[in-house]
């Protein structure tokens, strides 16, 4: 065994991929806590299902590709993908849907491209987009608000033992708003809707606003720990709220406030946990800003004007496509070359 000894012989202590991933997982905890408070323990079950599926898929692919299992299974990257999938899917989605999504993410979006660090697309978002395109009905069955099911009932639903009752006819606040506007055909305005319908809370979806606030908290912690850079989330929030704000100021009856949009759907999760993914995101400082900003703009466009309830996943995937170009054109000048050539 030749020890290929390479400088530097000193390495910074306490830096490793695993440490980065574990911190991301920890940062998700406040959001998960709020989720449990809102929906019940079923989300924990979904997290478990997704984690198991992800680890199994990862192990299988590593074995097939002849890579060391222990090293890569313990790096935590598969878990991060799994958790993001579980948190973006409806909490009472059948177990196989989550599993299929996770397999797609790990096998196709991650390992076909060479595994950790080499995937051009965000695996979790691939899973979400593929599932919402393939199973639109299942992916829009959210529990009706205030529905308190016992753990057993939730279990039965996830594993398909109980009929998928009307209790699941709920919608995300975003979807509810969109549908109501469509049904109202211009006779109804947003302030009234927000005030009358019980699905809406203080400034966004009832209950959901606290889940997203949990993500915001976790995201800020990640930033404080220097795990993520501020540019991408700032760009995302900026892009989303600028567009939302402009339309809201123009016509507050048809367009909801930026605050509503920021705390609805996957905006906060996207801003701090998805557009910040370094692997599939931009790597230059300006690139991250552009990436976040455009993702915010597209997410808003799709969720308000498009055919899907939320646009974060598609926005991120579309921007993933642009990453090589953005990176190429925003490459910072190097030492000594700042005043042009």
């Amino acid at each position, binding site marked *: 065994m030749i020890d290929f000894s*390479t400088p530097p012989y000193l390495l910074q202590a306490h830096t490793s991929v695993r440490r980065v991933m574990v911190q991301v997982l920890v940062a998700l905890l406040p959001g998960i806590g709020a989720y449990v408070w809102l929906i019940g323990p079923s989300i924990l079950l979904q997290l478990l299902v997704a984690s198991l599926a992800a680890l199994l898929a990862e192990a299988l692919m590593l074995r097939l590709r002849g*890579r060391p299992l222990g090293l890569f299974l313990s790096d935590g990257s598969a878990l991060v993908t799994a958790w993001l999938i579980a948190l973006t899917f409806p909490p009472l989605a059948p177990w196989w849907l989550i599993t299929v999504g996770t397999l797609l993410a790990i096998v196709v979006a991650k390992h076909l491209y060479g595994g950790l660090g080499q995937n051009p697309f965000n695996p979790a978002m691939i899973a979400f987009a593929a599932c919402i395109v393939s199973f639109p009905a299942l992916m829009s069955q959210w529990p009706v608000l205030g529905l308190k099911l016992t753990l057993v009932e939730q279990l039965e639903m996830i594993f398909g033992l109980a009929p998928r009752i009307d209790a699941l006819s709920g919608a995300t606040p975003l979807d509810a708003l969109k549908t109501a506007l469509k049904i109202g055909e211009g006779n109804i305005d947003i302030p009234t809707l927000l005030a009358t319908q019980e699905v809406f809370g203080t400034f966004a979806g009832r209950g959901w606003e606290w889940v997203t606030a949990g993500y915001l908290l976790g995201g800020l912690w990640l930033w404080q720990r220097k795990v993520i850079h501020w540019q991408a989330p700032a760009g995302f929030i900026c892009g989303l709220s600028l567009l939302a704000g402009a339309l809201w100021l123009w016509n507050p009856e048809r367009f909801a406030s930026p605050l509503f949009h920021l705390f609805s759907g996957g905006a906060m999760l996207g801003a701090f946990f998805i557009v910040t993914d370094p692997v599939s995101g931009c790597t230059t400082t300006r690139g991250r800003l552009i990436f976040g900003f455009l993702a915010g703009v597209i997410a808003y466009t799709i969720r308000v004007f498009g055919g899907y309830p939320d646009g974060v996943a598609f926005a991120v995937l579309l921007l993933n496509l642009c990453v090589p170009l953005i990176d190429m054109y925003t490459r910072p000048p190097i030492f000594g070359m700042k005043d042009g050539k």
Partner: protein
Amino acid sequence: MISALAIMALGAVVLGAALGYAAIRFKVEGDPLVEKIDAILPQTQCGQCGYPGCRPYAEAISAGEAEINLCPPGGLDGVRKLADLLGREVKPLAAEEKPKQVAIIDEQTCIGCTLCIQACPVDAIVGAAKQMHTVVESLCTGCELCVKPCPVECITMEPLTEKLDNWKWKYPVIEIRRVA
């Protein structure tokens, strides 16, 4: 029926005229691509590609007559560069890739026949009739053309030895596999 024919004929005449004009206006002289291809080839002039020298091979590639993977001295890197330039698919080398070599003349055996001198395409062998010959190592391209003509088989190809001047940092060993 007549109108259909007339219209198609009219179209043909108009488009034909436009193309004819363009053919004169945008006429291209020569083929600058050959130079670019030739610059990538290693200029060993060894003929291992089946063409008598590097430039004829470059011309053949440019004309689309030859594959890009016929040049063993250029190695896979050369194939890659050609593929890059020409937008073709990288193919494995048609022949085996050899490490870079130089010809060495065994001075005990050499009879001074000058046949190798005549075979060397780059004048890298010095010597005179009935005198011992020797290879100027820095000029030898390792084309092996001198090996065959030697009547006493005194020329051998030796791989280039690593010295401090041509020593290279190695590709880092990927340790992932070792841990497995």
